[in-house]
């Protein structure tokens, strides 16, 4: 049976390199995907993911191994990506995502998502890009579940108006 993330985190806290490598291999793809989604910048997403994982593993001694590892790491990746996006005023997130869009991906929807306020855009990205539940979104953003739900509802209302989608 494969060791759980928590077992691996405990081993990594004791300095087990193989445990670090296994944890890294498990979570690197998701971290990249999260960073790509939230920054919208394909070129620097892997750098953001690396920064986030370095930060997380650099503070592994503070991780409470009795708690789930994935939400803890996801929150660090999300915060790092959002900070990166806030700092990088030059980022051309929309352009990058639009350029990288596949022919069957609706670019008008991407444009509408980019025009949302940050709070609402993030919940939409986490909900539909990463398929997180409202409870997981709330945990990742450090807000009550009700707040995550209301942000999502308002974001969807904004998008329906913008895209002229009937309710």
């Amino acid at each position, binding site marked *: 049976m494969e060791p759980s993330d928590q077992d691996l985190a405990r081993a990594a806290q004791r300095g087990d390199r193989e445990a670090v490598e296994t944890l890294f291999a498990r979570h690197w793809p998701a971290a*990249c995907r999260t960073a790509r*989604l939230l920054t919208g*910048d394909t*070129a620097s997403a892997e750098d953001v993911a690396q920064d986030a994982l370095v930060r997380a*593993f650099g503070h592994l001694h503070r991780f409470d191994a009795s708690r789930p590892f994935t939400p803890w790491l996801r929150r660090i990746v999300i915060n790092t990506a959002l900070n990166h996006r806030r700092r990088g005023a030059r980022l051309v997130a929309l352009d990058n995502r639009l350029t990288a869009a596949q022919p*069957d991906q609706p670019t008008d929807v991407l444009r509408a998502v980019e025009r949302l306020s940050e709070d609402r855009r993030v919940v939409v990205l986490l909900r*539909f890009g990463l398929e997180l539940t409202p409870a997981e979104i709330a945990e990742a953003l450090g807000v009550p579940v009700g707040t995550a739900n209301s942000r999502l509802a308002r974001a969807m209302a904004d998008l329906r108006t913008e895209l002229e989608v009937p309710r």
Partner: protein
Amino acid sequence: MNLDDTLRTALRDDDPVDPQRLDLALEAVTKAAMRSRRRGRVRRVTSVSLPVTGVAVAGIGLWAILPRGSGPTTAPKTLMPELRGLREDDAWARLRALGLFPQVVSVRRGPPAAGATVVGQQPAPGDRLPAPGGRVRINVAEVPLPRDNLGDPVRRPMSAGMACIPASCDGLRVAAWPRRAAIRRVTASIEGRVIVLRPVRGTDYWQGTLSRSGIAARLLAARGTLDGWGGSRPTIAVEVRLRIHLADGRVRGYSSPVQVRSGWG
């Protein structure tokens, strides 16, 4: 299709993971985890240190007055030796003598080759030696490295700077980095087909496919901009490092001496 499904389609992400970038990230993450472990140890030691302070003081006093022999130090045996530059089979022999197992990465796996040279290692030289039976990663180059042709392009005329960049670097893909407010280190590196440049205020960032002359020009330009900063910040550490791991039967691995550290007080 309703709005939910439209959003899922629009935000779909099929980009594959870049395996070369994965290696780079793993190296950085492993180092961070090991630092974390040391910090965790320090915290634990600190938390129990107060009750034993008296014992420690007494112990130090005893140590100071007791006669001691001049036994050999064990420090060198606990640190990783420098393997880079060794022939691969020599590196294997050296590691096996330390009870360690080489793991060849990046180029190939298999028995050691007489003609190959070690161009990278993890743990780095001087790092703590793994426990007996532990793994040491080594990067090897199958062909003799053109060390004589590679030098430091910084502060050289354009033509000389270009000579420092292997011709096989033509067509490298360059990734742009975002600006950051506080810059303490600049690293330009070539890993596989990706160049990463940490940002510097006043430097133009780039993205796209570069020619060899483009790489040289940009390395030189980055340095030129940094030179213009002299004295404007208390301390600026600059490191320009060129690491090349190319394929196509030419240079397949390289950790070059292109490394510049500067500081302005």
